[in-house]
């Protein structure tokens, strides 16, 4: 199913391919948000074939910059239900096929 979807999507993508970071939902402060987006972009560009490494990198950088207990999910298709501390959620798409959830919960 996923393969079929991707194939279809690629057909459509031939028209327009959007790869810019698109924030779906975020309640971070603007400063934090821009920083986190930048981090996600950096990580996903660095490990564009390895979501796990990208997630690890994002998590470690967020831990370093904004205190511990960050959680990061990077993937192409998944569902989630999370509890996050307010002002620490970022849910964004990047590269046209990757969804990134970053939140903090200790």
């Amino acid at each position, binding site marked *: 199913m996923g393969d079929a979807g991707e194939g279809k999507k690629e057909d459509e993508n031939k028209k327009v391919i959007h790869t810019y970071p698109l924030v779906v939902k975020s309640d971070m402060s603007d400063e934090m948000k821009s920083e986190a987006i930048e981090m996600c972009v950096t990580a996903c560009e660095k490990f564009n074939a390895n979501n796990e490494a990208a997630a690890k990198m994002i998590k470690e950088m967020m831990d370093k910059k904004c205190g511990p207990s960050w959680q990061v999910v990077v993937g192409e298709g998944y569902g*989630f239900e999370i509890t996050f501390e307010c002002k620490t959620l970022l849910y964004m798409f990047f590269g046209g096929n*990757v969804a990134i959830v970053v939140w903090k919960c200790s």
Partner: protein
Amino acid sequence: MPQKPPPRKPPPVTTQKSASRLRSIKSPVKVKSSYQLREPGGEESDPWLKGKSLLKPDDQLDLSEKELQEEITRSLVVKNPLIHSDWVEYSYKDRAFISCEPQPNFITVQELESKVIHVESPEAADQLHETPQVAPVAKSEDFKNEIEEEPIKEDEEADEEKDEEDDDKFNEKREADSEMQSNGASEGQKKKLTNQFNFSDRAALTSVYPTREIGTQTIPPPRNTLNEYVTQWIIYDTYQQDYEAQQREKEKERVSKMTSQVKKEEPRKKSSKGGMDPTMVRLLQAAKIIERMVNQNLYDEISQVNFEMKATEGYVCLFTLKNPSFPEYINYCDSGAMCLDIHSSRSNFIVVGRYDGSVAVYNAHLPIKEAQFESNSVTNKHGGIVWQVCWGPDLIDGDLNFFSVSADGKVCSWIVMQNELSQTLVIHLLLNIDPIAGPNGNQMNLVGCGTAISFHPENPEIFLVGTEEGNIYKCSTAYASLYLFTYEAHHMPVYRIEYNKYSPDIFISCGADWRVKIWEDGRDEPLFVFDLGCSVGDVKWAPYSSTVFAAVTEDCRIHVFDLNVNKYRGICVQNVVAKNRFKLSRLAFNWYLPVIIIGDDKGFITTVKLSPNLRVKAKPPKKNIQMDQRILEQLKLEKLLALVREPTASSNVIDAEQSETSK
């Protein structure tokens, strides 16, 4: 300590003693003096001794090598020859000699009192007996030293003694203790055996504080939950939506920009109403004829001024074609606004000439409804109605300046300073007739009333001034009170002069004598004369063509001429508003759109669209299609002018015919 070889000859007693004690063997002992070892030439070869001179005691014997090598055997015996064997003392108590105990065979060399006592000493035993809890402790160095003199054999003897002590029925427990102590010494479990006179051991115990536990709980940081489901389709759709939203935003921005631009492009009409003081009859007459002033600047704003008969109040209004019902900008002034001009590059600056002779500069960007600059109403103003104002090119230092022409016969230049307007007289329009006698016998120069002004499009120093006497003077801002040329143009007041937009040598004028005339610079006869049968309020060259102009008359007609099509009469004559009720006063072409704006003396503004045949553009000759439109227009005009440059009777004849017919 005695075991060490003493620096000097060891005392024989000690040697004897140790020999007897340690070995109990009477055997000759080889003793080598340490001196011998250190003798030069000996086997001593320590490197650090090299180079050192040996100190020799003065009484040292000089021995030969042989003598030194000779072994001297000395026998040590247990018996100390120095000790008297039969030492007796006299006892007065017994009144007899009694033999003393023989002196012991050892000499106490050093005695140190120790803090600890030997575990096997009787002292220790006593102490253990008294305080069984205090455990005896290991031997200290000092103690070792003390017992050093006791030979090992004696230890064995002590063991035997201990056995005996065991036999002596020592408390079993105590015995075990001491056993343990002796064992413990070897095992490292050392107990203190204190010398009770020379030992102190103190300790203090502070009170122990009980520990307490205190805890608080803060409010946990607020949390929220989120659940989402994400697939490739969702990601794609979201991107798509976002992209569309962005596109829409851009579109909107573009539209808003465009509309704002369009708005700017829209010609604005400006009307101001003014009135006339009824007591000034002559001025009333003059004001009945409507003066118009049109200006097109770079933003193609067309302004139009209307004024009514009352001079008590006036308004400056900016209209846009988008909203004809209400002005975009409205400004009140306490005197009738007669004319205005919008700055060509800074379109927010509007200069207004007033009925009372003052001039004012308005900034349409400012929200305040007052003039930004205003001439002083007492000293710094014209003595008559300001009929026309006209922005000049900016000065070198960036200051704005404009010119005004007034009914008092003066043309003034105004410079917009930081806070004020500074006035400079450019020319005083004196008539070319002799001074006449004044009422008091003095001579008076007659002054022409300036009504219209137009600057040369290429030379900003040259300008034309029209007067109520009908003359047009060509003047220069460089020479005051000197006319470069005088045209006797009209028999009645000149209402408008305008240079052709394509050929700077050609200009058009109109006046109250029903005529519109086209002139060439430096030629005192007009090239064309048109009689419109009524007082001509305004005339304007079309911006798009060199040969098209329009004029409005008091009988509510607008005449559009295209000399290229018809040199003798207008190609379009149109009744614009109801006759007899209005008099058309002002006219303006839109710079871009084929629209003419007409103002009348009641304050109404009418917009007329030109039909396509009125705005035919010049067609280039077929061979070179790439020619510039401006050059084409110039050529067209030039070709036309070539026909009329030679004074032909035809134009005059036509003029005469027309005037006759209209009469």
